[in-house]
């Protein structure tokens, strides 16, 4: 055993030979903290000490390791719907646990922009969110870290009655990205909507573990991943919809649209629907492969070269997630940030 952390674990596991059951993370020995908390403070949010006990997509081993390393959770205090843009730049190995509470009926709009000014470093950002009755939390994430940077993005959300969580993620740059998300839909009529867009090239990879746990009646979850892989880029996506007994009338859907732009890429998808309740609806759909020749022909018939057409489709993988960002300022911010990528 290497002593690495086992994170993003698939529950239940499948054959080991498929190498999708989990991700092994070598966590650095020393980690600075407050990189993210300070960025939120700079963005105008208040901070205080305070933790939330919420399960995340990366899992317990990561949470325990952060505790052992003395990372103190910070509560971020956001008053209203005005967008809070947290620009988090990692200048070395760092980790933060950020806790956010949305009060009853409150709407929060949050944007995290992840960059790295250090090469060969790692950043861990764990975001724990508690959404009270009727609240809505819109979290948008832009990741454009360096090619040698490892970024661990770990989210856990608990949703009370009628609460909604909308997550838009744009994984544009960053050598190694490990992304976990778990939504506990424990309030009747609560909902989770995830739209993730990714481009992986030049041997970059992303390992994703997204779990929607429906425990209350009439809950809804939607997970949509669009991406483009090329030049040795790789992606593993585990998407689990877990219908727990008592969630009658719940609906969960997963959809994936991946473009494989050459023969050097690796794409792994593990859709999983667990069902312990009768009256539920779960679905998974995937469109994975090379761009259709008819689509390229259509684009070329308008004067666009084949190479340019592929670039447009590559960017469209990110744009798709951008289009779901509900806050206009956040949408414009992310859209202009990826313009040249």
């Amino acid at each position: 055993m290497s002593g690495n952390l086992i994170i993003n674990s698939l529950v239940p596991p499948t054959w080991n030979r498929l190498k999708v059951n989990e991700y092994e993370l070598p966590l650095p020995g020393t980690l600075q903290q407050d990189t993210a908390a300070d960025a939120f403070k700079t963005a105008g949010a208040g901070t205080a000490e305070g933790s939330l006990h919420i399960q995340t997509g990366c899992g317990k081993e990561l949470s325990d390791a952060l505790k052992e390393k003395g990372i103190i959770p910070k509560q971020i205090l956001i008053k209203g719907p005005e967008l809070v843009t947290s620009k988090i730049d990692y200048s070395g190995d760092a980790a933060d646990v950020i806790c956010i509470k949305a009060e009853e009926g409150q709407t929060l709009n949050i944007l995290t922009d992840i960059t790295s000014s250090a090469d060969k470093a790692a950043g861990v950002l764990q975001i724990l969110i508690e959404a009270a009755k009727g609240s809505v939390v819109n979290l948008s994430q832009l990741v454009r870290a360096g090619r040698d940077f490892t970024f661990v993005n770990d989210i856990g959300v608990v949703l009370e009655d009628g609460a909604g969580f909308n997550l838009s993620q744009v994984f544009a740059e960053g050598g190694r990205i490990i992304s976990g998300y778990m939504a506990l839909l424990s309030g009747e009529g609560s909902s989770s909507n995830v739209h993730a867009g990714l481009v992986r090239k030049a041997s970059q990879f992303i390992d994703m573990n997204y779990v929607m746990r429906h425990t209350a009646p009439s809950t809804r979850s939607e997970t949509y991943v669009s991406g483009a892989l090329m030049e040795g880029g790789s992606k593993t996506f585990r998407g689990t919809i877990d219908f727990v007994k008592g969630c009658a009338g719940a609906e969960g859907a997963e959809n994936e649209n991946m473009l494989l732009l050459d023969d050097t890429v690796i794409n792994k998808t593990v859709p999983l629907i667990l069902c312990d309740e009768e009256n539920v609806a779960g679905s998974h759909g995937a469109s994975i492969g090379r761009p259709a020749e008819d689509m390229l022909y259509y684009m070329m018939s308008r004067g666009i070269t084949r190479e340019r057409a592929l670039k447009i489709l590559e960017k469209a993988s990110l744009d798709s997630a951008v289009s779901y960002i509900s806050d206009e300022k956040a949408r414009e911010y992310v859209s202009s940030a990826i313009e040249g990528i």
Partner: protein
Amino acid sequence: MSKETLTIEKLCVRIGEKEILKGLDLKVCEGETHVIMGPNGAGKSTLGNTLMGKSEYEVTSGKITFMGEDLLAMSTDERARKGLFMSFQNPVEVPGVRLSEFVRNTCEAMGEKMSLWNFKKAAGEQMKVLGMDKTYLDRELNVGFSGGEKKKAEIFQLLMLKPKLAILDETDSGLDVDAVRTVSEGVKAYQEQTGGSLIIITHSTRILESLKVDRVHVIADGTIVCEGDSSLVDEINENGFEKYIGK
């Protein structure tokens, strides 16, 4: 005498082992509007796709000259940049790519780099011709568009790109009377704005009502079997294609 825009000589085309076009000749001069009619399977759409350079269509013999150059030596995108356009019968959906972004890219490919402001202004003017709401610009290209919306989006691109020769492949098919009228207005605007040439491939004649037609060609079994002026349209409307089949 007008300049020749397109000259097709003894064109033979096959898909796989099946020969579709069998020695087709056609000449289109600057500013002219030609109508291609014919029964199903005659080779009308094959002609459009061959001109545009779709890879499945293999030219086994013949010659195509466009704007004085060998069209067959060009790739599809080169043909478009040279001034050839085709409005597709079934335009494909391009998820994630907004109509505005796509058309801006096509304008750039044609060498016309516009600021966002100028693009939106130009797009707004052309959309007005087609009675299109500006919100179309933010929609993903052809995704979830109705048949009529798709065809309008095609004509919108025609108006923005201003090609020298436009092929309209059954642009009026599946449209209601009002939509045909709108599309027809768009095509008329293209003629007026650019003086460009048109090849209109059609089954019906409603799209032709407001257009001045120079020549009508009837294709049957891969070759042109009859040609005439616009009165030929009325004759076909009355008697159908039966007398041309097996001619």
